[in-house]
């Protein structure tokens, strides 16, 4: 199958996910379980995606260590400032510095 068709089919599937409960919920009402879960969806989902990003795709222990420390620094920065972008502002320089120290590059 052409890669263009595969991408288009994947796009339709993604849109179906986005539209599903909006289309159904308008007629049937949002399930009570979803309403209770809504406040937790963002922190839970983002924690899962972030944790995977910290650990995945690294071929050696050094980058994992750098990433872990950078995340720890980012957590402290956000707790102190209350601002999300402090995570990037503090975490990326930490990552670069530790990578330079641990891998020499």
């Amino acid at each position, binding site marked *: *199958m052409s*890669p*263009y*068709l*595969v*991408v*288009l089919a*994947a*796009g339709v*599937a*993604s849109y179906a*996910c*986005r*539209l*599903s*409960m*909006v*289309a159904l*919920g*308008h007629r049937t*009402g*949002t399930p009570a379980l*979803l309403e*209770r879960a*809504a*406040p*937790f*969806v*963002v*922190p*839970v989902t*983002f*924690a*899962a*995606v*972030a*944790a*995977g*990003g*910290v*650990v995945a795709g690294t071929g050696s222990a050094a980058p994992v260590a750098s*990433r872990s420390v*950078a*995340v720890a620094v*980012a*957590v402290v*920065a*956000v*707790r102190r400032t*209350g*601002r*999300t*972008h*402090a*995570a*990037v502002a503090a*975490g*990326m320089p930490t*990552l670069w510095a530790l*990578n330079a120290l641990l891998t020499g590059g």
Partner: protein
Amino acid sequence: MAPWLAGMGLYALVVGVSGATSGVPGPAAWLTGPTIYSGGAQMAAVDLIDSGAAPAVVLVSVLAINARLIVYSGAMARNWAGRPRWWRALAAYLLVDPSFAVGLDRYGQAADGARDGGGRARADDRDGAHAHYLGGAVALWLVWLCALTAGAIVGPRLPAGLHLEFVIPLFLTGEVVRRAATPASVLGAAASAVVAVAGLAVPLRLGLLVSIVAGLAVALAASREGR
């Protein structure tokens, strides 16, 4: 909003680079932007197509990664009830992690205002929240496509040593720290992170879906015990 735009721009740049350096035809890799419109799912799709995976495998992978959008859709459904069909169709197309977070914040403020104000103020605030969501979501979409295009054109020349791909985990971590304000949400986020790491080896990235379900179960159980 500005941090989300910056985060989305950098992420899209990375996604554009990964697509441009893969073996997938450039236009097909770029097309994942306006169609799939989800960084992780886009990169997975390009990677799988590049490796010769069956179309069914690509579809199941994209569905698994984007299954969280069903939960987002459910959370937004009550806010969008009563809007015109075209509006809900467009709003749903623009639903991604950042637009969901930005929209949910504003709808929450509108609900708070409705408790304090009268009927007219309530209607105005709801209209304002709808405009805020749609305006923000369109801005995020435009930034995503522009940065994706830029990444596809100039990305391969950026030094890999910058590790720009790590901006997203950091940014998401910042959002978790800021938003996990209750013990239940902290426990849910921690459980989700642990299961996500343990499930990295699960094929098709289904571990991500399992970790989200586990985290939500822990958070819901903890919130019940906390009452």
